[in-house]
């Protein structure tokens, strides 16, 4: 009993800490970039400095948080839904779908810019979103619904591999798009504006509420499917809703920022390494953790080789992976096979 109480206190403390860290990072984020802190000082007198702080730094910092939060949320849902610690937001093929969407869009932009007005209007962002969500739908179709976890997983892997192969094929056939594709695959938070920010925040709010409402299904599932069913949970409908949350969250993040690695996988683990908690809290905390992780990575991305930028995906992999590795070793040292 006291242990549960302690874990709950830990969870609240972690949540509070992550929120405070988010705010701190947001403030630092407004003052880091190609021109440095003086842009903030001059913001009231110089319209360009104002534009840099208000229209570029703030939306991209907030956008990085929102995208990270979406990925962390999708990761927590995926790991709960598939009861697999290696599950990540891209499990159902969204990453490959988005890649294919973007590569096709790039090819048609390049070949005949005038014949594809609708594609231009859809843009790379729209193509990525359509591809990501389309891939999940294809997975559901191939798995004939959501009843069988294993079938769903396998269908996701197959869709991922096949669509990924087509995306690679497109790059091979039209090598002009290869570099643009690489940029997309490494992910970047550099192009996020207020609209994208608002869009991602709205999706995040929706997804968090739905996922939180369905979190008891994830708790039930963690005891095994038979137990969950015996608890009287309408599993099929809940699974559909959770997969929809996952697809929507992942698709929105990927469309705006590209394929950012590792945040979705690492964020839930990072939370679990600090505190054991039910999915209702885990989802929220993993979301905050993902946001903080990507925000920190974005900050380093623009600071390390300023005035140029590193691809943020490289940093999330290094940061998230390094921290996770450290936690893993620390926990095995202290408790002999603890949290991870």
């Amino acid at each position, binding site marked *: 009993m006291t242990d549960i109480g302690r874990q709950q206190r830990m969870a609240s403390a972690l949540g509070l800490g992550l929120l405070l860290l988010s705010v701190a990072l947001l403030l630092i984020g407004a003052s880091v970039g190609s021109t440095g802190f003086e842009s903030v000082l001059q913001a009231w007198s110089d319209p360009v400095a104002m534009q840099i702080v208000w229209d570029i730094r703030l939306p991209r910092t907030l956008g990085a948080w929102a995208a990270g939060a979406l990925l962390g949320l999708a990761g927590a849902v995926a790991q709960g839904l598939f009861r697999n610690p290696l599950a990540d937001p891209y499990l159902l093929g969204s990453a490959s779908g988005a890649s294919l969407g973007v590569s096709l869009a790039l090819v048609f932009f*390049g070949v005949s810019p*005038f014949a594809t007005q609708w594609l*231009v209007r859809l843009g790379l962002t729209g193509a990525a979103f359509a591809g990501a969500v389309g891939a999940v739908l294809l997975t559901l179709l191939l798995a004939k619904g959501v009843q069988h976890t294993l079938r769903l997983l396998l269908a996701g892997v197959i869709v991922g591999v096949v669509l990924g192969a087509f995306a690679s094929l497109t790059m091979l056939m039209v090598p002009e798009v290869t*570099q643009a594709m690489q940029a997309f695959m490494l992910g970047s938070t550099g192009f996020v504006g207020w609209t994208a920010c608002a869009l991602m925040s709205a999706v995040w709010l929706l997804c968090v509420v739905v996922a939180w409402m369905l979190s008891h299904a994830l708790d039930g599932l963690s005891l095994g499917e038979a137990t969950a069913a015996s608890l009287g949970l309408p599993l099929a409908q809940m699974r559909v809703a959770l997969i929809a949350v996952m697809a929507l969250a992942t698709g929105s993040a990927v469309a705006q920022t590209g394929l950012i690695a590792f945040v979705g996988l690492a964020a839930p683990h990072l939370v679990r390494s600090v505190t054991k908690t039910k999915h209702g809290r885990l989802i929220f905390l993993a979301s905050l953790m993902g946001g903080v992780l990507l925000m920190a990575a974005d900050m380093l991305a623009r600071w390390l080789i300023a005035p140029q930028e590193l691809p943020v995906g490289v940093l999330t992999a290094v940061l998230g992976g390094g921290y996770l590795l450290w936690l893993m070793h620390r926990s095995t040292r202290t408790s002999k096979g603890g949290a991870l």
Partner: protein
Amino acid sequence: MKNSGLKFLLCWLATSALCSAHAAAPLQVTDDRGVVVTFAQTPQRIVSLLPSLSETVCELGQCQRLVGVDRYSDFPLSLRALPQVGGGLDPNIEAIVALKPDVVLMGTSSRAGERLQSLGIKVVALEPKSHADVKRVLEKIGQVLQVPDAQRVWRVIDAGVAAAAQSLPASVKQIRVYFEVNRAPYGAGESSFIGETLTRLGAKNIVPASLGPFPKLNPEFVVRANPDVIMVGDRDYAGLDGRPGWSSLRAIKEHRVCIFTAAQADMVVRPGPRMAEGARLMAQCLQGKAS
């Protein structure tokens, strides 16, 4: 007609204030995305995110209007002194905005275009890929920068390519060439920019137009085609003769491989105003290796 030309000249000599008074009608340019960009005044501060576009601006004599370039723009050398704002595909948006450009010139495949536009920056996206594109881009940029002699610059470049072709004796003109773009191997087909130059020089390309501009080739294809001359960048040259079956290629046995340094390769492969230099390099190669 003559009068308007004189006015134009006067306009250029006069101060910008006078100039804007004359240029009452706003300038409209349609870029390669089909987007119409309107300029109330001739842009004075330019950021270029594509090396061939930076070169074009300088070729038109307007190098001084460039205030920032991408990290790959390395010609003319004076560009290295300008602030670099990242690559064409991963530019630093904030660094571009801080330069307060009147226009950003860039390729069509970058997501940065939409973002810059939403920040109120004028973007002209141009994607030169062929000889005809070089001419078109020269004219477009000439139009944007209000430089009247883009046509003349093009004629000089075009004459340079023609001169390179004429420098070759008729006997060299049936040589079959394989141009390797990289070691995957991708070859330059007849429909590519490089292929067009080869065609103008009169040489034959072993990669037909039907395969597309830059097809990924089976190494076997090259062995079967047995080219007379191979052109390759020095980065991809190492190990070329060690590829299975390639040691028996005529070009390799008779040491007819032209290796371009990175700087030379830029002239040869960039669809920009240095295409005449590129053609000259290729002509030298054909003459040296084939006679």
